[in-house]
């Protein structure tokens, strides 16, 4: 992370009235806190720590709602949630096309993604009928049980 990135984050914080921001990666950790009255942000930057795995960004706590049954979000959309823990993949293989994109029409039997756990690739079905409006997780990121994966406008 260089000074340009940190400046960009500070501007974003000011613009959106965010007072605290924390980002942790395998090799670094940064914490920005704005003082009262929107004063100069305090920057806390930790020494890089030796590590080889891909960056993992997991919330320290998260509120989860029951998975399996699609959840109606505030905007009238349904969330497709993860039924398992693993790594989220948008396509069956690195060279193949994504299973779904924003705007894709899906039926309950449509495979929307793969969640890989212990070397087994599990095809995840949509279980709803509608149109994908949002993809909530980046490719190859870890997901937990109940984590929202897609937003769907039901048909």
């Amino acid at each position, binding site marked *: 992370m260089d000074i340009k990135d940190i400046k960009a984050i500070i501007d974003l914080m000011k613009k959106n009235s965010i007072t605290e921001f924390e980002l942790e990666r395998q090799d670094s950790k940064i914490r920005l806190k704005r003082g009262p009255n929107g004063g100069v942000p305090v920057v806390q930057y930790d020494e890089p720590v030796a590590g080889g795995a891909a960056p993992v960004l997991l919330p320290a*706590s*998260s509120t989860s709602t*029951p998975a399996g049954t699609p959840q109606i979000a505030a905007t009238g959309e349904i969330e497709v949630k993860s039924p398992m*823990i*693993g790594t989220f993949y948008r396509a069956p293989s690195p060279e193949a096309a994504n299973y779904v994109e924003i705007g894709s029409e899906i039926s309950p039997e449509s495979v929307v993604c793969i969640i890989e756990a212990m070397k087994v690739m599990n095809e995840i079905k949509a279980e709803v009928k509608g149109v994908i409006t949002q993809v909530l997780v980046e490719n190859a990121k870890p997901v*937990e049980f109940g984590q929202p994966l897609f937003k769907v406008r039901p048909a």
Partner: protein
Amino acid sequence: MFEKILVANRGEIAVRIIRACKELNIRTVAVYSEVDANSMHVQMADEAICIGKAAASESYLRIDRIISAAEIADVDAIHPGYGFLSENAHFVEVCESCNIRFIGPSPRAMQALGDKAVSRALAKKAGVPTPPGSEGVVEKEHDAVAIAKQIGYPVMIKAVAGGGGRGMRVAHNDISMVKGYHTARTEAEKAFGNSGVYIEKYIENPHHIEIQILGDTKGRIIHLGERDCSVQRRNQKLVEEAPSPLLEYRFRKLRDKIGKAAVKIAEAARYTNAGTVEFIVDNQGNFYFLEVNKRIQVEHPVTEEVTGIDLVRYQILLALGEPLQHSQSDIQIKGHAIECRINAEDPFDDFRPSPGRIEMYFQPGGRGVRVDTNAYAGYTIPPTYDSMIGKLITSGKDRREAMDRMNRALAEYMITGIKTTVSFQQAIMQDPNFRRGVYSTGFIEQLLGGARRELIEEKT
């Protein structure tokens, strides 16, 4: 040193393990079921991963989900706590095949002490006395009756796969023997998936004495003295203490003898990491081996207080392959410690579980007071798990000081919104027999049945 440990448990023990990791600068990963999202262990860990719905069978017992979580968080080791998967040899094997260190004994040691009948046989071979009983699982009804006649009534029918005080039946004659034999088998099948039962002489009102052991990978094993856990209600421990007043006041030489027997059994099983060897002691000072608990136990804090040794930290270091830093002669028992398990139960309503939201919470403190808990004001206790919300441990230079301190500390608790066993434990601390150190496992039944009831009811 491990970089990251996943805690495969919940509640107060998960908090305990996370604390030990923090003190060793090890990053922690919590796993939680949906209903535990606001639990303390989730807040304290560096990372947290939801692993399923409330039921333990859908979350904390799911080996696949826990291993998946361990993989995406890239942990080096898993600490299983107590209960759940802590004594599951298959889980240990899965961890090993995924290159994740299991913080506990090896699968081989677990299998050697596998079920109660097997460990009984091991103890016998090691020359450690066991209660008279069957040589293994009793397959047929007429064998059961014959063995009972041989041992002499009363006898206990026990599930080989049982644990936590469950899966046991007492028989006083042939009729109750036959009935008990069949009901115990059915119950065992339902509760543990294994209908195997064995038979043991029932020693009435025994004292439950257990020995804490530690073993390293070089084969060295030491014991850290005993804990007396005789204060039980329906085979569930309520108060534990170290050292045992029975041994301190009446059978001084027994500590060394029982300690050596515990080490012998552990050596025979090639045991590693932390464990507890359980014995029953009768009023004449005869002791008999019961079973080995192959995990850290709920009541480990009383041993920590009187020995000054951090047992969970030791578990982590031993799992790394480090040798024991103490020899048997280094272990000194100083002072006295008592633990009360604070359960969300109503002692005035037959200990009915009382889950729900804790409105106000203030816990005791001051000198010689330790509280291991996950409770806080505003926390909602889920109904899906056991009812223990914390442990109150007091220590003192002697038993009297520890007891008086426990009395003082229990009175400081201010908990509203749920019912707790605090008032009941106050009654125990003030009971003359308990104070004299004269009690066995029949103590609570006597306390509840006798004239002490008005003392308990006064405490609300």
